[in-house]
């Protein structure tokens, strides 16, 4: 295994949203804007990398019968840290993400990676895997957030910088309301499936 291909795998084949189909709740709930998407992915990335490293370092000591409760306690500890840091230093972001910061603790991506990867591999590769999966998560969240924000408000504003501003505001308000999230991810998933089927047909 070389580290770079392990990192890329987290973005492409094992992409948390389109490959593994895990962690849908935060994906849909916080992607009303690119800014929220970045904040959420940053929190998730910290927890994922830390828990992967910890679980992997302790994998010989953890008895396999009680491993799930132990994983959850490890994850909950890091989530509490993220929650307190966000509350103290980024109060507007914390208010916008609301209940979804503490809910990182039940994000299936994190416990899924602890069980499927960190529990079987060494610390270095678990670290790389955590980084790769987090990057995949960030890219998908930014994509969905970008689509919804630009269709809903006509511009993308991230941390007070206007990145893109459309000449005409389409103002499809539905896109930043809950139905827009379901619609966006449904269409994106259909496109991903189509591309995969085409690739398979070409490969024989």
């Amino acid at each position, binding site marked *: 295994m070389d580290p770079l291909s392990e990192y890329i795998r987290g973005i492409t084949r094992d992409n948390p949203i389109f490959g593994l189909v895990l962690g849908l*709740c935060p994906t849909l709930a916080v992607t009303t804007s690119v800014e929220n998407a970045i904040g959420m992915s940053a929190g998730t990335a910290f927890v994922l990398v830390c828990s992967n490293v910890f679980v992997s370092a302790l994998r010989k000591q953890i008895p396999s019968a009680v491993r799930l409760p132990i994983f*959850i306690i490890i994850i909950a500890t890091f989530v509490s840290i993220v929650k307190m840091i966000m509350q103290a230093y980024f109060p507007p972001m914390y208010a916008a993400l609301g209940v979804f910061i503490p809910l990182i603790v*039940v994000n299936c991506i994190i416990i899924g990676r602890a069980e499927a990867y960190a529990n079987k591999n060494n610390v270095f590769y678990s670290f790389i895997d955590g980084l790769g999966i987090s990057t995949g998560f960030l890219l998908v969240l930014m994509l969905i957030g970008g689509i919804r924000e630009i269709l809903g408000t006509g511009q993308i504003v991230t941390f007070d910088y206007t990145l893109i501003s459309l000449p005409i505001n389409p103002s499809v308000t539905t896109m930043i309301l809950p139905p827009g999230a379901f619609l966006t991810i449904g269409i994106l998933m259909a496109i991903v499936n189509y591309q995969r089927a085409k690739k398979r047909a070409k490969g024989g």
Partner: protein
Amino acid sequence: MVEKALFAILMDGIFIKNFLLIQFLGLCSFVGVTKDVKSAAGMSGAVVFVMTMAATVSYLIYTYVLVPTKMEFLDLISFIVVIAALVQLVEFVVRKNIPSLYRSLGIFLPLITTNCAVLGVVLLNVSSEYNFIQSVVFGIAAGLGYTIVMLMMSGIRERSTFVNIPSSVRGLPQAFLIATMLSMAFVNYFWVIPI
């Protein structure tokens, strides 16, 4: 804070802040177990029970153990432990009494522990500073809202199994497109009614 009427909390939990369609909590089971009505109903029953119990027990723990000892920062960890214990209890009961349901739910029964809807109820109760009765009512309401949407969704999906659609839309994308319609209906009908 103004005391919120129980009826308002009930309506809030079932329709206006519906957990699946408006707040996006508990989506894994929403797309995972809604392939047929029977397992959706079984799953909803288990979730209603766990949600109500979790709302009750965690309120007691938060108010009478964590607040007096000034250990509110341990809330997340203690809630998770409470929920995990409750799910274990439900699992024992279902496996012993309804083995067929146990088999059809499969992995999703232990996964109620990591169902964000259950932890979401508990956390929302704490953040909106509900008292004991309000917490329990909100737990029941959220469970009922979950049940209604699960039944609607599984009914639609069961009937649309043989619909002629492109193969790349079949499965998850189709489920999300159905959810779009349902969510649109919920947003438009229930957000205009002031309570």
